[in-house]
C-alpha cells in the first residue's frame, strides 16, 4: 500500500490508500467497477492502435494504383482484420469501459449489479482478440521459436483470414484456412462478453439507482447505454447463433448457408439482423457522450433532454427494422425492399432530432473551445455528412448504383471514425482529470482536435467522390484515374495518425507528469450549474485523499 507521494502529500492518479492488493495482482483479480472500466479502456486503446496500424497499411497500398506494396492476399487480410478489430475490440469495449466506470457513479450505486460477471465479461475479451487475430500471434510464436532453431509447422499454418468483416458465404464457408474457424469462435466469445456486460448494465440501471435518481432525472449517458444494452441483448445472440451455424457448415457438414440448404442469402439476413443494430450499438453511446459533454462547454443545459431520450429509444427500436437495406442489390422482392427503404429513411428522423437539439444547445450559449468541445462539435459535423450520405444510400435507386463502392466506405467512416471515435476522444479528455487526478496538456489536446477534423474530411470525402465515380471497394489495385483522390485520402489518414500519436503522448506523459488537480471543478461547471454527479463524487474523493496528509 502506498500512502504518501513525493510531491508533498498530494496523492495523484490511482495510487491512493485502499484495501486493494498492489501491482499486477490487483489488476488481474479486481472486481471493482472502476478498475474494470480502466482495463476496458486500456484494452480498447491497444486494439485501436493495432487496428489503426492496419488502416495505415491499407492506405499505403492504395497510395499507388498497382499492387506494389502488399500482395492482394495481405491487402484482403488487412481490411478484414481492421474491421473486426475496430468494431468488436475498440469501439464496443471503449464505451463499455466508460459505462463501467461512470454509470455506478452517475446513478449513485456502489458498484455494478454483478461485479464478478463484470470481471469475467472483461477477461473474455483478450482471448477473443487473440483468437480473431490468432494467425498473427501464432506466427510470432513460430518465428520466436524458429529464431532459436525450433521449427514448429503448426504455428505457421494459420493465415490471416481474407473474408471481409461481413464473412459473406459461400466464400467464408468454403475457405480452407483453419484460421477462419478461430475467427468465428473468437467473435462468438466476444459476443458472450458483450451480452454479459449489457445485462450487467441493464440490471445495474434498473435496480441499483440511488434514492434520488429517478427515470426522469437519470442522466443522458446512462439512458443511451441502457438503450444500447437493450439492442445488444437482442442483436448479439443472433450473431452468436449464425456464427455457430457457419462453424457447423465449415466443419460438420451442415448446409445452413449452402445453396441446397438455406442459401448464401440466409447468412446475409442473419448477419445484418445483427450487423445493422450493431451500428447503433456503437453510435448511441457516442451520441450519449456528445449529449453529456456538449452542454458543459456551451454553458447551457441540454436542449430538449426528453426528446433526446425519446429519439434514443426510437433508434433502438427502429434499428431492428432496417437490416435488409444492406441487401437491396441481392434481388429480393421489390415490395420487401421498399418497406426496408421506408424504415431506413425513417430512422434518419430521430437522428436529426438529436442533431438539431445539439445545435439548439449551442445556440446563444457561451461556447468554450476546450478539447472535449472541439471533438463534440467536430463529431456533429462528421455525423451530418455521414448521416446525409446514409439517407441517399437508404433509397433503393441510389443504392443500386453506389452499392459496394467507396461511397459506402466513406459514408460509414464519417460515422465510425467521425462521431464515434470523436466522442471517445472527447470523453478521454473530459474525464481525464477525474480518472488520473492530473490535467492533460490542453494545447496538445486542441491541436489533436483540429488535426482530427481536418484528417477525417481529407481521408473520407475523397472516398465519397471515388464512389460516385463507381470504384468498387475491397480491391488492392485500381485504375490510374483515381490516383489523385486516393492520395488525398491517404494523406488525410496520415494526419489522423499524427493526431492519434499526439493524443497517446499527451495521455501517457500527462498521466505521469501532468499538473495535479486539487479542485474537482476543473471545467468551471459550477458557474453554469452543471457540476454533475461524477464531479461531486470526484470532489469527495479528493477530500478523502488530502485527509491523509494532515
Amino acid at each position, binding site marked *: 500500500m502506498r500512502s504518501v*507521494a*513525493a*510531491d508533498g502529500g*498530494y496523492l*495523484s492518479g490511482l495510487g491512493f490508500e485502499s484495501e486493494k492488493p498492489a501491482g499486477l495482482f490487483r489488476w488481474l483479480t479486481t472486481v471493482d467497477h472502476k478498475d474494470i472500466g480502466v482495463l476496458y479502456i486500456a484494452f480498447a486503446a491497444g486494439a485501436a492502435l493495432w487496428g489503426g*496500424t*492496419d488502416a*495505415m*497499411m491499407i492506405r*499505403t*497500398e492504395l*497510395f*499507388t494504383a498497382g499492387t*506494389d*506494396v*502488399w*500482395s492482394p492476399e*495481405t491487402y484482403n487480410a488487412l481490411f478484414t482484420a481492421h474491421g473486426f478489430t475496430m468494431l468488436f475490440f475498440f469501439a464496443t469495449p471503449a464505451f463499455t469501459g466508460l459505462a463501467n466506470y461512470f454509470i455506478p457513479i452517475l446513478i449513485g450505486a456502489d458498484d455494478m449489479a454483478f461485479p464478478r460477471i463484470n470481471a469475467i465479461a472483461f477477461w473474455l475479451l483478450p482471448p477473443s482478440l487473440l483468437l480473431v487475430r490468432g494467425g*498473427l500471434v501464432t*506466427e*510470432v510464436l513460430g*518465428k*520466436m521459436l524458429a*529464431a532459436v532453431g525450433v521449427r514448429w509447422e503448426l504455428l505457421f499454418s494459420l493465415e490471416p483470414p481474407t473474408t471481409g468483416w461481413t464473412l459473406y458465404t459461400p466464400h467464408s464457408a468454403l475457405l480452407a484456412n483453419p484460421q477462419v474457424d478461430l475467427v468465428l469462435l473468437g467473435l462468438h466469445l466476444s459476443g458472450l462478453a458483450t451480452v454479459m456486460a449489457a445485462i450487467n448494465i441493464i440490471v445495474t440501471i434498473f435496480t441499483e439507482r440511488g434514492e434520488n435518481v429517478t427515470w426522469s432525472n437519470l442522466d443522458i449517458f446512462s439512458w443511451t447505454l441502457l438503450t444500447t444494452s437493450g439492442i445488444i441483448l437482442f442483436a448479439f445472440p443472433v450473431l452468436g447463433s449464425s456464427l455457430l451455424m457457419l462453424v457447423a457448415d465449415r466443419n460438420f457438414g451442415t448446409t445452413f448457408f449452402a445453396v441446397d440448404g438455406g442459401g448464401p442469402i440466409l447468412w446475409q439476413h442473419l448477419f445484418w439482423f445483427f450487423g445493422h443494430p450493431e451500428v447503433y450499438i456503437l453510435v448511441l453511446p457516442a451520441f450519449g457522450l456528445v449529449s453529456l459533454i456538449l452542454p458543459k462547454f456551451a454553458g447551457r443545459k441540454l436542449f430538449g433532454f426528453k426528446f433526446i431520450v425519446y429519439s434514443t429509444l426510437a433508434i433502438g427500436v427502429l434499428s431492428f427494422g432496417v437490416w435488409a437495406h444492406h441487401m437491396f442489390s441481392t434481388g429480393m422482392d421489390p415490395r420487401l425492399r421498399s418497406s426496408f427503404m421506408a424504415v431506413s429513411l425513417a430512422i434518419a428522423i430521430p437522428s436529426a432530432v438529436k442533431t438539431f437539439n445539439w445545435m439548439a444547445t449551442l445556440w446563444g450559449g457561451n461556447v468554450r473551445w476546450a478539447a472535449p468541445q472541439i471533438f463534440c462539435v467536430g463529431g456533429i459535423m462528421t455525423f451530418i455528412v455521414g448521416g446525409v450520405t446514409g439517407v441517399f444510400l437508404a433509397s433503393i435507386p441510389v443504392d443500386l448504383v453506389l452499392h459496394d463502392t467507396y461511397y459506402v466506405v466513406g459514408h460509414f467512416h464519417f460515422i465510425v471514425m467521425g462521431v464515434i471515435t470523436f466522442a471517445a476522444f472527447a470523453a478521454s479528455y473530459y474525464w481525464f*482529470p477525474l480518472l488520473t487526478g*492530473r*490535467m492533460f*496538456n*490542453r*494545447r496538445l489536446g486542441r491541436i489533436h482536435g483540429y488535426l482530427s477534423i481536418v484528417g477525417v474530411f481529407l481521408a473520407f470525402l475523397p472516398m465519397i467522390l471515388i464512389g460516385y465515380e463507381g470504384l468498387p471497394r475491397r480491391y488492392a489495385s485500381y485504375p490510374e484515374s483515381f490516383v489523385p483522390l486516393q492520395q488525398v485520402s491517404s494523406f488525410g489518414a496520415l494526419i489522423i495518425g499524427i493526431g492519434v*500519436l499526439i493524443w497517446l503522448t499527451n495521455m*501517457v*506523459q500527462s498521466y*505521469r*507528469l*501532468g*499538473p*495535479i*488537480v*486539487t*479542485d474537482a*471543478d*476543473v*471545467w*468551471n461547471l459550477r458557474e453554469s450549474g452543471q457540476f454533475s454527479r461524477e464531479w461531486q463524487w470526484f470532489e469527495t474523493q479528493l477530500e478523502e485523499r488530502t485527509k491523509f496528509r494532515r
Partner: protein
Amino acid sequence: MKRPLAAITGGVTGIAVMSVLLLFLEVETRSNLAIFEAVARFAGMPGNVAFGFVLFVLAGVFAWPLAFMALEEYIPGGPDPATRGMVLAVVLWVVFVLTGRGDLSGGLLAIYVIFTLLAHLCYGFLLGAVYGRLTSGGPLEAERYDPTDVSQ
C-alpha cells in the same frame, strides 16, 4: 537501486517491448519488411540474422542504457528521463534507418521508416522511464493545475 543496474533494467524492459513490436510488425506485414535482416545489418552482421539479433539485444540491454546513464545530463529534453531516452532513441533510429533499410523503396520504405521510429520511441521512453523511476525517490515534481490559467 544502483544507477547502472537501473539503466540495464530499463534496457531490458525497452528491448523486450521493442522486439515484440518489431516481431508483430514483421508478421503483420507478411515479412515484406524483412525487419530482422535489417536488425542484422544494423548490428553489423548482414545475412546472419540470429547472431545479428543477439548483438542487437546486447546493445539494447547494456551498451545504450549505460551510454544513456553516462550522457543523461547532456541529452536535451530533461528533466524527464523518459523524454531524454526518446531523444537518444531517435539518434539510434537514424542509424537504424540508414544502415538497415536494404533495398526497400516507395510505400514499404515509408511503413518501415514510420513504424521503426515508433518502436524506437517506445524503447527510449521505457528505458528512460524505468531508469528514472528506479533511481529517484518518486515521481517528478509536478505543479498544481489552475483552471484559470489558459496558457497551458
